[in-house]
């Protein structure tokens, strides 16, 4: 069980018509999920949706209001507390700083359900503790005082303590809160490895949709007293479901990019960006951040720029790849450009499929639009009337001047 993934997919945890909440006040109702062994399950949802309440109910820290939970084959409520501790371990959000504990001693507390009457550690127990510390890459912390560890190090040691219980199921409440990006990714990678290498079922509540989409096998979206979606992140984490989940108005989860784009307020001018092959992505984001409206073209619909632009809510003139740009696309791009206050040329490739965009730049100059370009213009591609800039800050200074 420990080192090899079981060949038959068995349910590690099953909830049937479960209602969780406090004293007759249901928080989430009608939960019917079955968690397979060795899967990484993420609970997503806004603050106060009941993720913690659900986790507390699963760990038997509070009783369910209705319905049933089965751990493997057994009903949760019938397990003895000591037996449950050998199956399930938790990492809570409680800030605990017991004094005068080395990380090793702290992790050794996790051996509690396995040790004898006075909690004496056998050689096997010590091995398990060291293995747990190694699994979270915290071997070097074992002699450090727990109270002196940083938040990130402490979180890893907390996970190690849970691992020392040798659980089959690991429940974590916001394991990445308060962590810097490095530790956030490290903790997620550790948890991911636990699923893969040790077959441990991990159930965690998270706030990072983008990370959740990349590590989870199953995602549960928790909102308005129900699990609104349950399935693989590829299926259910679309920009629409995420926008509804968190009531996004100015942000958008990009399904293709797996990240959140933050839309601007669009109170300044409208800018037409000639981009392609990923050259536009950072410019779109900077324009959105500074409050410009964006339109862009002509792009092939599988271009990275196209995904970023749609994520930011930009008007994106595109067509599916395979042929040269049609007259219709060209007309649309021109009319978008006509409606814009300025044009930016994002150093697109002038030889490939985006060759024709060069015409757009010429037309823009003819229309009398201010055109800014990152290209060091020379040779036959040189177009007169273009304002050349070398970096973003220069670009925005020039934009302020030409379009206050």
């Amino acid at each position, binding site marked *: 069980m420990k080192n090899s993934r079981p060949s038959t997919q068995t349910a590690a945890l099953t909830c049937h018509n479960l209602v969780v909440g406090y004293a007759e006040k249901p928080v989430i109702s009608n939960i019917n999920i079955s968690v397979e062994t060795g899967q990484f399950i993420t609970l997503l949802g806004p603050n106060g949706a009941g993720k913690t309440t659900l986790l507390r109910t699963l760990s038997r820290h509070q009783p369910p209001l209705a319905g049933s939970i089965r751990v493997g084959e057994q009903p949760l409520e019938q397990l003895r507390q000591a037996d449950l501790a050998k199956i399930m371990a938790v990492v809570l959000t409680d800030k605990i700083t017991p004094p005068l504990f080395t990380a090793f001693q702290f992790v050794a507390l996790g051996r509690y359900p396995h*040790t004898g009457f006075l909690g004496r550690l056998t050689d096997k127990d010590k091995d398990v503790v060291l293995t747990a510390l190694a699994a979270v890459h915290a071997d070097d912390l074992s002699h450090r005082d727990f109270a002196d560890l940083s938040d990130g190090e402490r979180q890893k040691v907390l996970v190690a303590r849970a691992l020392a219980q040798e659980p089959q199921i690991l429940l974590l409440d916001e394991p990445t809160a308060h962590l810097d990006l490095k530790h956030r990714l490290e903790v997620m990678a550790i948890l991911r490895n636990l699923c893969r290498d040790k077959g441990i079922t991990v159930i965690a509540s998270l706030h990072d949709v983008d990370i959740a989409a990349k590590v989870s096998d199953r995602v549960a979206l928790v909102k308005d007293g129900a699990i609104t979606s349950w399935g693989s992140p590829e299926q259910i984490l679309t920009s629409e479901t995420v926008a509804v989940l968190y009531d996004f108005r100015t942000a958008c989860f990009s399904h293709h990019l797996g990240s959140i784009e933050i839309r601007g307020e669009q109170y300044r001018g409208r800018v037409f960006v000639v981009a392609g092959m990923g050259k536009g992505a950072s410019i779109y984001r900077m324009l959105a951040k500074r409050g410009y409206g964006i339109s862009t073209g002509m792009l092939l619909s599988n271009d990275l720029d196209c995904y970023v632009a749609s994520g930011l809510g930009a008007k994106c003139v595109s067509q599916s790849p395979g042929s040269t740009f049609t007259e219709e696309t060209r007309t649309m791009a021109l009319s978008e450009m006509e409606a814009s206050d300025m044009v930016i040329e994002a150093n697109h490739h002038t030889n490939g499929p985006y060759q024709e965009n060069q015409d757009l730049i010429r037309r823009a100059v003819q229309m009398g639009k201010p055109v800014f370009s990152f290209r060091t213009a020379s040779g036959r591609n040189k177009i007169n009337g273009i304002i050349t800039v070398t970096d973003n800050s220069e670009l925005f200074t020039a934009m302020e001047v030409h379009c206050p």
Partner: protein
Amino acid sequence: MNQSPQVQPPIPYGQKHPLALFVILFLLMISMVAVNICTGSVTISLSELFHLILRPDTTTESFILWKIRFPRALAAVLCGGYLAVSGLLLQVYFRNPVVGPFILGISSGATLMVSLVMLTSLTFQLRIITPFTVTLAAMAGACIVMTIVVAIASRVKNGITLLIIGLMMGYLCSAVTSVLTALAEEEQVKGFILWQLGSFSGFKWDEISLLLLVGSLLLTGVFLLAKPLNGFLLGEEYAKSMGINIRFFRMLILFLACALAGMVTAMAGPVAFIGLAIPHMARMIFSTSDNRILIPGSFFLGALVASGCDFIARSLLSPVELPLSAITAFFGAPVVICLLMKRRVKL
């Protein structure tokens, strides 16, 4: 398995050698007891002491030794040790460093009952207040409060609620006591105030044997709790997830802590400071939070400090005996402050 040279399994009992520290503590305690027995209005030399221990006779020295000095020295050892262990239990359970054995109102309950006896005895037509009556009253008070606390403990959800309820009960009892004090006559009030400051004088062998018998039973119970107590260091939620029956152990911990503190209060009065400070000192001396070390460690340290304080209380302004609580606090508080400042340990 892991034989890489860097990863040495740390000593599970903290950085120092607990056995050596235990031996030192024990020897210090024994010497302090010897000092307590030998000094006083009549000085007994060590050779005389051994002689009198082996062959008790009918001399005044023998009488003083067996009827006064021995019971008193033992009382200091036992009471100091019990109070320290009681304080340790509650500090661990509540995960709060400013908690002491009397936080749940044990001393206030005992004080209330004693004030009823000592301050209103005339109204009850009791001419003589024997020390025995006072002890009985204090024991009754401590027991009543303890019963209430344990009964509440089985119902409340978490420790903090219980802590506040305990504090409130303490205030209630103190309120009644202060009304009684205001109404009482002056000469009675002085005796009552002195009782409130605690003393190890006047212990009888009966009381000592009761302290020894019940106390050792309770201490055994505490030591068997060492493992779950270590689990409680992470808080009730984690303790539960590691397989600890929270409700059962909560009641057991509170019962043992209250019983130890109540027993001492009944016989020696509410001795301040020892129960609060000794667990901190033990933690810093042994530099560990492991209760398997701290339970015996606190006991011996408590015994040592209580003996030392009793010695100072008796001898500093002899023949006047100073109030015990004044000595424990006056000499103990600076020690704790120094230790904390020096070691920079977060408790």
